[in-house]
């Protein structure tokens, strides 16, 4: 894992670097123009499906595949209202479910991973190295290996059809990526801070709470955003643990648009798809800085 670890002190400088274009020698006006043309073209091709989805969500069904222009010639905003109530429960239920799971997962990850990270980054105790290696090992471990026994365990605990299987692991720091991210961040903070706090009579908990936590906001923001995106998108966990439609998350609900054999309500399906992606895109725009830094630090996706 020798990926560059952006330390907060260097981070300030890098940020400015990031925004400013590096002008390489020998870069003529024509080559600059070609670059822009090329990049815009690729960008347009990549954005086109999303724009098409947005436009289709506002078109009447009959036009979606017949009129390929992005700007609808005929508007059908009713797709949103109809799609909202098209399934067993209205989408308000699914969005609330997803939101509850996401918010609790963020709290769980921030709480448990920051505690573990502080332990690994700053405290000295017997077996620390061994545990740290174990933690890194779980980062590489494909989750599907644990799937069957975890399912059996959760079903024995009577947790099927509840949110516990989706939430409890997040409160128990099972997401090693976030621990790793925070450890890297905490290690880059000057150790003198801890020493000063100790001399002032702070124990490890006060030091963690009063000194380290406030300085870790960037790492916490990265964790929160990544948790938001991955939990909001998560499909597999809810699929196996939730069978009662009242508990469905947004992705499970969306899938039902395909289940119903009618398959002609594309407008409604796209309308709800747009709504389901909107929070991710919103978070992305708001937190881009943290995301980019986060994946540059840990290679997280």
């Amino acid at each position: 894992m020798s990926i560059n670890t952006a330390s907060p002190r260097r981070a300030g400088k890098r940020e400015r670097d990031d925004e400013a274009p590096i002008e390489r020698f020998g870069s003529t006006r024509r080559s600059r123009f070609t670059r822009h043309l090329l990049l815009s073209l690729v960008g347009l091709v990549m954005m086109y499906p999303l724009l098409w989805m947005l436009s289709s969500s506002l078109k009447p069904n009959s036009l979606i595949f017949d009129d390929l222009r992005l700007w609808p010639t005929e508007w059908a905003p009713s797709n949103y209202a109809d799609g909202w109530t098209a399934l067993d429960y209205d989408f308000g239920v699914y969005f609330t479910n997803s939101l509850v799971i996401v918010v609790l997962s963020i709290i769980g990850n921030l709480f448990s991973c920051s505690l573990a990270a502080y332990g690994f980054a700053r405290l000295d105790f017997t077996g620390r190295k061994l545990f740290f290696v174990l933690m890194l090992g779980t980062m590489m471990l494909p989750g599907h290996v644990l799937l069957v026994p975890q399912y059996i365990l959760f079903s024995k605990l009577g947790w099927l059809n509840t949110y516990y299987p989706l939430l409890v692991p997040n409160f128990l720091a099972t997401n090693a990526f976030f621990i790793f991210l925070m450890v890297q961040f905490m290690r880059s903070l000057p150790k003198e801070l801890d020493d000063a706090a100790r001399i002032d009579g702070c124990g490890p908990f006060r030091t963690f709470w009063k000194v380290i936590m406030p300085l870790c906001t960037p790492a916490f923001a990265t964790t929160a955003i990544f948790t938001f995106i991955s939990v909001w998108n998560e499909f597999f966990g809810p699929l196996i643990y939730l069978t009662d439609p009242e508990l469905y998350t947004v992705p499970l609900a969306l899938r039902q648009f395909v289940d119903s054999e009618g398959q002609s309500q594309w407008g409604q399906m796209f309308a709800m798809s747009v709504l389901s992606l909107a929070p991710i895109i919103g978070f992305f725009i708001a937190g881009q800085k943290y995301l980019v830094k986060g994946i540059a630090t840990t290679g997280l996706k």
Partner: protein
Amino acid sequence: MPAARERRGGRGPAAGRRRHRDRAGYLFLLPWFLGMLLVVIPFFASLYLAFTDYNLLNDPKWIGFENFREMFADPLYLQSLKVTFTYTFVSVPLSLAAALLVAMVLNRGVKGLPVYRAVFYLPSLLGASVAVVLLWREIFGREGIVNAFLGWFGVQGPSWTTDPDYALSMLIVLHVWTFGSPMVIFLAGLRQIPTMYYEAAAVDGASRWRQFRSITLPLLSPIIFFNLIQSLIASFQTFTQGFVMNNGSGGPANSTLFYNLYLYQQGFNQFHMGYASAMAWTLLIVIAVFTGLTFLSGKYWVHYDN
């Protein structure tokens, strides 16, 4: 200090301090320790179950290597292996190449870099979402925009979603569409390469290609290596794309029956928990072998600067 650490147990102020110190550390790690129970126990439990016949209702019955023998005689299992390998070995190199190429263009210095980066990165956050897989089905549908576009060039596009020969390729396109996250990592790596190397090379008359071969590739190789391993591991575990494509069936004609999708069918539709565990462990071994091979090959192409 090291001497004190060597001595275990014992009495006296040093040992007391150490116990106190240990207690603080373990308290911080308490949630993690409990979480590890949810990892370590299932890890070994699934290894045990892999050698049993278990359907959740009756007790697991030890059957030795029977599950594994059955697997390699199971045409659907072999099909899922083939689908996953094809998908991985086509889409991972393509998306990493796209990521590197675009990162290099961006790194040559363009105005509006944050905007471009955002546009290229955004799809990688959406690629695994149900909404986007549903969108992909419609884009590639018989009358979707992809075929309309091909139509402009007089090409009659196939029916991507229902033709077993093409269904997987539209998911490969979806994977390549998400090249943004390795791209951001490449970009961060490229920024660490001092410009003076290129300046010196240019003075010596090295061509662009030569500069790429002799400066960029070696200096970036640890990051290429890292991206490669990450992408391989993630790609072997693809699930949502295959599931949403055809309502969990892996169709058309099992052409998108990903490994984990078949594992899901075995474990959670038919409750063949032993078989599913055997599949999970086999995939773990496959992933470990490929990761190991990548590590070994790294000796020849990964250049560490120390």
